[in-house]
């Protein structure tokens, strides 16, 4: 296979990889790969996309084959990259040259993330706001902001660990921590409704994106990817529920039958 076709398929694979890594749906990944390779003249390309891997084969006019298998572990949601690759594929269809497209893709790959402080503040704000919508008062929201921010900090810390933590353990510990903090702030008399504080504090951990994506995959007929994501959602939710439960049970035992 000549170098031009190879470059086209490399570009398509690169775009697909970024999309899948950032939490895009399967059909979007497949369509982007197909569009890019078709636009640059590789008619015979086939992509088979899993929720954690891409298989890509292409064939040129001489009948030479190109095959590429890539394992792509699921990492955090980064919707800005999904948007950027989507825009790139649109530009390619409008006639962007291959060289420029490659350069743009490299640029997308190294797109900067958010600063840890921003993420902590966002977790806090999200927790506080949703504490209000479920009926918390101003003090409860303040307590929720503090607890939610600390939970966000915990998540960033765990994300930085070299050894990847099991998702169940991560969320179980996180929810345990969130409940403990909520109770602490409740006892410090910052807020008066420990229920609202706790629910706010566990909000940043709830798997909203996985949930939405899994439903869309299932509705699109990508049952495998949908099931994997749904399982992920259920596991995370179960972890959170167990974390909250574990803390209450411990508290109950330690205080000798005192229940909130």
């Amino acid at each position, binding site marked *: 296979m000549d170098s031009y076709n190879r470059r086209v398929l490399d570009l398509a694979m690169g775009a697909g990889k970024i999309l899948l890594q950032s939490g895009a749906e399967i059909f979007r990944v497949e369509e982007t790969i197909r569009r890019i390779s078709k636009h640059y003249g590789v008619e015979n390309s086939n992509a088979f996309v899993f929720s954690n891997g891409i298989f890509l084969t292409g064939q040129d006019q001489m009948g030479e084959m190109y095959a590429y298998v890539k394992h792509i572990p699921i990492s955090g949601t980064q919707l800005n990259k*999904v948007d950027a690759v989507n825009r790139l594929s649109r530009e390619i269809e409008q006639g962007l040259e291959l060289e420029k497209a490659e350069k743009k893709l490299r640029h997308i790959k190294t797109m900067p993330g958010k600063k840890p402080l921003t993420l902590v503040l966002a977790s806090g*704000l999200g927790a506080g706001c949703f504490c209000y919508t479920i009926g918390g008062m101003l003090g409860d929201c303040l307590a929720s902001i503090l607890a939610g921010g600390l939970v966000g900090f915990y998540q960033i810390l765990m994300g930085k660990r070299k050894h990847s933590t099991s998702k169940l353990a991560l969320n179980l510990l996180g929810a345990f921590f969130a409940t403990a903090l909520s109770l602490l702030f409740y006892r410090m008399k910052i807020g008066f409704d420990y229920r609202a504080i706790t*629910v706010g504090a566990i909000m940043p951990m709830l798997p909203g*994106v996985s949930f*939405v994506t899994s439903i869309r995959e299932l509705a699109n007929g990508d049952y495998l990817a949908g099931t994997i994501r749904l399982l992920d959602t259920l596991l995370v939710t179960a972890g959170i529920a167990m974390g909250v*439960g574990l803390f209450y049970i411990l508290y109950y035992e330690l205080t000798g039958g005192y229940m909130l």
Partner: protein
Amino acid sequence: MTVNALFQFAASFFGTIAFSVIFFVPREHYLGCGIIGGLGWLFYWWMTTFLELSYLPGTFFAAALVVVLSRICGVMFKCPATIFLSSGIFPLVPGVGIYRTVYYMIIGEMDQSSVYGRRTIGTAIAIVLGIIFVFEIPQQGIARIARLAEKGRRKKQ
């Protein structure tokens, strides 16, 4: 009532924006995400408080509204609807339900726990149906609505 509604909207507006920051939504779409999340929650709140609908139809219609708005924004700003949907649906996610289910299970009130457990699953299914039904609307229909919205916006300017 108006003041309360305003506060409800503001809280879910800022909450949704906070979550869109966590999911790395591009900066120019923060406002759209916030408005979608805020309107979705406001609609749910209005339906369950004033129309006294139960949580099931409430969640379903609110989720449907969020998905329609996300798709319209997706067409208007030429980007995937998922960007708006993922954070916009967050106010409707049954966080309280999960909490209550576990809580009542632990204090030994199994009846209460199963009531809230069913409620949580029901809410999740209502969201699922809302998403699936609205995504069945063909893209042309959504594009037509988006064009109308665009025209209206231009006229105002």
